[in-house]
């Protein structure tokens, strides 16, 4: 399993753009928002957490179709499916590799970009916590969408239509956690809900993804 993780990470880095592209996209989103809504600090401060969450969502979405597509085309997905480790574990490892190459850099870079959007001081901690808790769920749900569309030639747009509605609960609780944290309100409910959703997603969705891959490999 560690070998598989190392292989996926190496592929992501050497194929170019694994780490960098998601981050660059995130930066572009953050840059474009003030052009769209105007440069006033107070407006930006109010929508900053939402924009950062949306940026994370979209940056994550961009690289989803590559999770399984390349392996499907060159046949290594067939080998992985017949490998001694269960396909569910393969899916989990793939999600982890995806998170390390897109989710983790976003989590690390988010405070930097938050400065550009005038995020209020107390919100930084909660922004970090919410992204750290929420982005693994985005990657795992992404494997489900990628597994459904892996056999399709033009799956990109369909993938976003399938995956984005699944992101709604994570987005709601993640952004709400930052908002409440910034205003000093009680944060237990969104915090526990976000953690719960991520835990349940990581535990259960790989089964659905593996089932979808098995159907597509038939």
């Amino acid at each position: 399993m560690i070998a598989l993780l190392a292989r996926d990470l190496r592929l992501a880095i050497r194929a170019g753009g694994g780490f960098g592209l998601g981050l660059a996209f995130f930066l572009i989103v953050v840059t474009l928002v003030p052009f769209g809504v105007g440069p006033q600090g107070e407006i930006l401060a109010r929508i900053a957490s939402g924009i950062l969450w949306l940026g994370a969502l979209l940056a994550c979405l961009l690289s989803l179709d590559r999770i399984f597509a390349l392996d499907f085309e060159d046949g290594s997905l067939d080998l992985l499916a017949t490998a001694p480790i269960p396909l569910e574990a393969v899916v989990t490892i793939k999600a982890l590799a995806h998170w390390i190459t897109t989710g983790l850099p976003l989590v690390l870079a988010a405070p930097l970009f938050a400065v550009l959007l005038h995020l209020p001081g107390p919100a930084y901690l909660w922004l970090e916590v919410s992204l750290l808790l929420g982005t693994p769920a985005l990657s795992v749900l992404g494997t489900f969408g990628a597994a459904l569309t892996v056999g399709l030639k033009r799956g990109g747009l369909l993938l976003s239509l399938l995956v984005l509605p699944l992101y709604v609960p994570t987005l709601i609780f993640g952004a709400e956690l930052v908002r409440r944290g910034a205003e000093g309100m009680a944060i237990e409910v969104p915090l526990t809900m976000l953690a719960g959703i991520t835990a349940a997603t990581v535990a259960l969705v790989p089964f659905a993804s593996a089932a979808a891959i098995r159907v597509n490999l038939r």
Partner: protein
Amino acid sequence: MSIWEYANPVKFMQTSGWLLPWVVGATVLTLVPGLVWGFFFTPVAAEFGATVKVIYVHVPAATLAINIWVMMLVASLIWLIRRHHVSALAAKAAAPIGMVMTLIALITGAFWGQPMWGTWWEWDPRLTSFLILFLFYLGYMALWEAIENPDTAADLTGVLCLVGSVFAVLSRYAAIFWNQGLHQGSTLSLDKEQHIADVYWQPLVLSIGGFGMLFVTLLLLRTRTEIRSRRLKALEQRERMA
């Protein structure tokens, strides 16, 4: 008389063909009186004005929009567990009907909300969850369209329906938490004696029944069409092989 008999398309075509005129009759007999009664023969409530009449379309459509998804969930489960082919086709046939019902509920709701709340759209939990449900219908239908092999498509959309159901429910509760709403509580539910006066309630139940029958009619028709188009494809394939 079990649903497993109807895994055989021939048997399903026979029975549904025999059933169809009766179902159409029942639809006409409930939907038309329900709507006419509701629109023209109920007193105008002073505080609501005439716009309240839209309830006779809005509530049945919204009820169906949710229940059609539940029906698709059950049909997908039956397909995934027992390879019941007609069941998979029924789920496929139900999706566009459910999508249209969701759209009707959203649009009539907007027409109702404009005079009542002074806005066409509000990010109220119920409205938001219906919008999300609409997106789920779109994704489900798009996945059916995108995959060529019918069995693969049935399997994948079935799995999507299961996962989607969980997340649709989750989104609903997340939306309730996210924003307190303007929308009034349920018009009908089983745990209260009376929500609205009988003069409004009776035609409402009749039109809900009418919409339900309309759904059954459309579902039978669409499933029959799906079976026929599947047969046509098989015939074409045989032609090409020969």
